[in-house]
Structures are given as C-alpha cells and as structure tokens.
C-alpha cells in the first residue's frame, strides 16, 4: 500500500499543520481532505483533534463527512478529539451524537485534580497491536478534559492522579488515541510509522 494519508480537515477545529508535519516525518505523503470525494483518493485517514465535541461534529456534518468516515474501509486513526468523536455520544456542552464507530460515551474526566489533563504521561498498552509495536512503554502528550468511557475495544489506558482512563481504542480498521502522537517526540512519530504499516 502506498504511503498516502488523508487528514480530515474539519474547518476551524484541527491542528492540521502539526499532524501533517509529523506524518511526513514518519514517511507519509499527506493529502488534506476538504471534500467527500477526497476520501476516495486515500487508503487511510487521520482524524485530527483540537476542538470541542459539539463543534467538531457540527463541522463534520456541514462538510458532509460523516457518511464518508463511517463508510471508510481503510485504517482510520482518530487523535484526541478525533478519537472521542468515534464514540456514540458526547457530553461536552450538552449531548451530541458522535460517529458511533466505537461503543462509548465521552464525559468530563472524573478525577480530583486540575483539568485539562496536560502533559506527558505514560501509556499502558493492554493488548497486542501493530499500532504500538516497539512503543509499548512510552510517554505521550495529553491535552484534554474529556475522556472516552467504555469497556469495549480498549487498547491502552493511562492514569492521571490515580484515575485510570482509556488512552487508546481499536476495533477492526478503527484506531483512536487520546494523546497527540504529533506532539510526542520520537514515540509519536513511531506510532505514525506503525499506523502507515497497517493494511
């Protein structure tokens, strides 16, 4: 398979530039997805993540991307908000329906500490997966106040102030990471390299 990756551009939200640069560093050829037709040009897609659940879903809807993503057959990697919107329901600023690709809900993190959870934290991988090949015990950068709550498809967890939460999910062709690989130094680049190798 080629090294082509499509990054879904959903308007105001999304740190597309950072994600592009990191993917390129990992050896990818990056295509920005601006229209539903663009999905057909790429064998795999990345859903970036800066924004709020509500706004993110609203943008995806107005861009006409929801069907394209749900129907996409190649590997999908959701990052941070991108992972959260894979869920069924989000509770940020009221209730919003997600992409419903993972059975989970997104709620405010339940912990006794400062939110958002910001900084480098250790990720505990609990299943074998090509996504975390050779990077099972690394530090990754987190920046979020909401967490994915669900017991299905959990690939990795992490702990913030004694509160354990889901830090990565995987189900068939769908992968999600709560952290930002594009901001996690070599480990993050390696994760992208691993993603590129998934068929």
């Amino acid at each position, binding site marked *: 398979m080629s090294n082509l990756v499509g990054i879904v551009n959903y308007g105001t939200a999304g740190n597309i530039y*950072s994600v592009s*640069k990191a993917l390129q560093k990992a050896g990818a050829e990056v295509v920005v997805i601006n229209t539903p037709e663009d999905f057909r040009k790429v064998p795999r897609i990345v859903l970036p993540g800066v924004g*709020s659940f509500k706004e993110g879903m609203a943008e995806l809807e107005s861009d006409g991307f929801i069907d394209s993503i749900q129907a996409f057959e190649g590997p999908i990697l959701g990052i941070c908000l991108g992972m959260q919107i894979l869920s069924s329901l989000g509770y940020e600023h009221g209730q919003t329906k997600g992409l419903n690709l993972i059975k989970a809900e997104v709620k405010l993190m339940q912990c006794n500490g400062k939110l958002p959870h910001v*900084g480098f934290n250790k990720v505990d991988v609990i299943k074998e997966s090509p996504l975390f090949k050779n990077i099972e015990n690394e530090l990754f950068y987190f*920046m979020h106040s909401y967490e994915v709550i669900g017991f299905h498809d959990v690939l990795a967890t992490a702990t913030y*102030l004694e509160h354990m939460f889901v830090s990565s999910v995987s189900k068939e062709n769908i992968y999600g990471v709560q952290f*930002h690989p594009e901001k996690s130094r070599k480990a993050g680049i390696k994760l992208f390299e691993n993603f590129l190798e998934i068929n």
Partner: protein
Amino acid sequence: MSTRIIAKLDVKPPYVVKPVHFEGLRKVGLPNEIAAKYYQQGADEIFYIDIVASLYQRKILLDQVEQACSDIFVPFAVGGGVQTLHDFSELFHHGADKVVINTHALQINPNIIDEAAKCFGSQAVVVNIESKRWDNWSECYSDCGRIRSGKNVLDWAKEVESRGAGEILLQSVDHDGRQRGFDLELAQKVVSLVNIPVVVASGAGKPDDVLDLIKIAQPSGVAIASLLHYDKSTIKELKEYLRTNGVEVAL
C-alpha cells in the same frame, strides 16, 4: 504527573529576544534554531510569544510561526496580538497546538476566551497573565508588560477559568529576566486558587530556582527563558537535577 519543563521564546520577529522587566529587545537568535535547540535538549513544550504584536497593533506574523515550529514534535503554544476566533484558527493552521492570549482579552473583550474555549476546546486556550506587584496586590498588565489594567491577578485568574481557559501562563514583570528566582508567593496563590493547569514563568537563574518553585507552588509547568538563552543550564541537566531532588519529570 510530571511537571512540564517549557522553553519560552519571546519573539520580536524575526528574532528571539530577551527583555528584562518586559523591556528591551536584546537579540538571542533565530526562532527556528532556538526552538530546535531546546527541543533537542528535551523541552516538553515550546511557548512562542510575539511580544510586540499587541504593542505595535498588528497581527501575529503567521509565516514566522510556521517557520519556527517546523521539525518540533512537542506542543507549540503561540501567542501575540490574538483578538478573534479567526486569529485562533489561523494559528492552528500554521503550527500552533495551543493559542496564548492576553492584551485583547484583558483590556477589550474577555468574551473571546469563552468563544475560543467553546470553539476549540479549553485545552487549546492559554491565558497569559503579566503580573506586577504593588504593596498588597498584584496587577495584570498588557502590551508587553507596559499598560495597566486595574485588574487584580487573582480575580482575573478566577475569571478566565470560569470563562473556559484551559491553562494560565503566569509571568512576572518584576522578576522577568532578572534570574533571581520566581514570584513564589503569587505562584502559590494562583496555583491553589484555580483548578486549571498553571505554568509559571519569569525568574529562573539557576536550577534551584526551578526546584524551589516546584516544591513551594506545585505548578503544572515551569517556563524558562534566560536560564536557557544564556546557557546557564540545558533542559536535560535541569530535568536530571529535578529528578534527583524528587520531582517527577518526563525524561
């Protein structure tokens, strides 16, 4: 949770500069070289602030931002002259992972904080507070530490939190560039007052200054500039020193 060690770049494009008490434009080097250097040394994040954008009443120079952050694979927080949601969005499209705001929110339109948090998520909105001490209170300043606001730092910190800011960058006009330690008292007050992460800056002259700050105020992150620019320590050395002294850092 590790305490973040953050390299702060005060930028007057096209140079990184190092003011003292938020005055003076002594050149340190080029942004992309300096940022790369600190990234290699192990910085957890880079803060890039165009310190004159608001003062000169212009927008931040996006191409300069893009150039500075290339090949940096840790978070890049960018600020300077930010006023509108469009400014936030443009910055995210040019390399910013978080956007830092002060002058416009403080002096003209605090609502921009609420709007930006709703639109981009709290975690992407950092409010920069330039504090200056009076006898029994600290005041928020704008325009690179030279225009008063009349607002109390503690009140403003609480207010920005309630408006949805995800992080505070707490600077001190009195300590900036002096390399004589941080405003520990104010740092401790602000950190314990709000429930969002606080990054404390201004004053590190030696690794012990950073250690003292962390032990006393427990900030989420420490931003350093002079310590690095004048080669008093590298980030790696600093992190090792902190780790030896019982502080959790990302090594």
